[in-house]
């Protein structure tokens, strides 16, 4: 794991993701993972950002080599599964199924003047339910407590993807 950075350069991350869309390297993207949850809940510690993207290249590689080349040409570094900007680790993850639907229905936001999208809480909950680690259960609890949840949408997502919420 890389050293923890002193600040999160989220605007730079989102700007870079927008450039990937403009360059045609990805179709669409949204902020997912812990930072997406923090959009709706109180802040908590996390050490990376997850950018979930819909690939333009539908082959097995999902265009990841081209994405890496593009970002490295802009000064990003590669360290294991992360790309680093200003020492902050970012994971670019190809969307499919539930995560692709989450990207396509993500909420438009503006962060420090940068247009971006963030997963809706119903999708964060469904994805967390599908993964089911301790931290995912905690994320569900936080979102159910603090975010405005569209219950009908959440139930529909859970039903279609055959998921169940854990007992909290």
């Amino acid at each position: 794991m890389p050293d923890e950075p002193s600040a999160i350069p989220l605007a730079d991350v989102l700007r870079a993701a927008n450039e990937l869309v403009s360059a045609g390297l990805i179709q669409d993207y949204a902020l997912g993972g812990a930072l997406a949850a923090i959009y709706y809940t109180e802040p908590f510690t996390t050490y990376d950002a997850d950018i979930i993207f819909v690939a333009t290249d539908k082959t097995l590689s999902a265009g990841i080599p081209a994405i890496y080349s593009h970002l490295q040409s802009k000064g990003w570094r590669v360290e294991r599964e992360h790309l680093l900007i200003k020492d902050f680790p970012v994971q670019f993850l190809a969307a499919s199924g539930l995560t692709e639907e989450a990207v396509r229905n993500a909420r438009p936001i503006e962060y420090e003047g940068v247009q971006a999208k963030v997963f809706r809480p119903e999708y964060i909950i469904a994805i967390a339910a599908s993964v089911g680690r301790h931290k995912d259960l905690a994320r569900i609890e936080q979102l159910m407590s603090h975010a405005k949840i569209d219950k009908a949408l959440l139930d529909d997502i859970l039903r279609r993807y055959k998921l169940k919420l854990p007992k909290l």
Partner: protein
Amino acid sequence: MKPEMRDVLARQSFEDKIRKVSELIQLSRKVKAQRAREDGRNYPQTGSRYPSSIAATSPKDSKK
């Protein structure tokens, strides 16, 4: 943390929340560095993060 306090924090702007996360990361870094310094003071002879009794019986050593 009290639920009301969590609600207040959850209602902050995303920019403010990301700044708070950055502060939490810095704090975590300080705590880790302090812990590493303390370990260095406690177990200087072994050069290990473990006490000599544990370091001597680590699986790595027992293979020798």
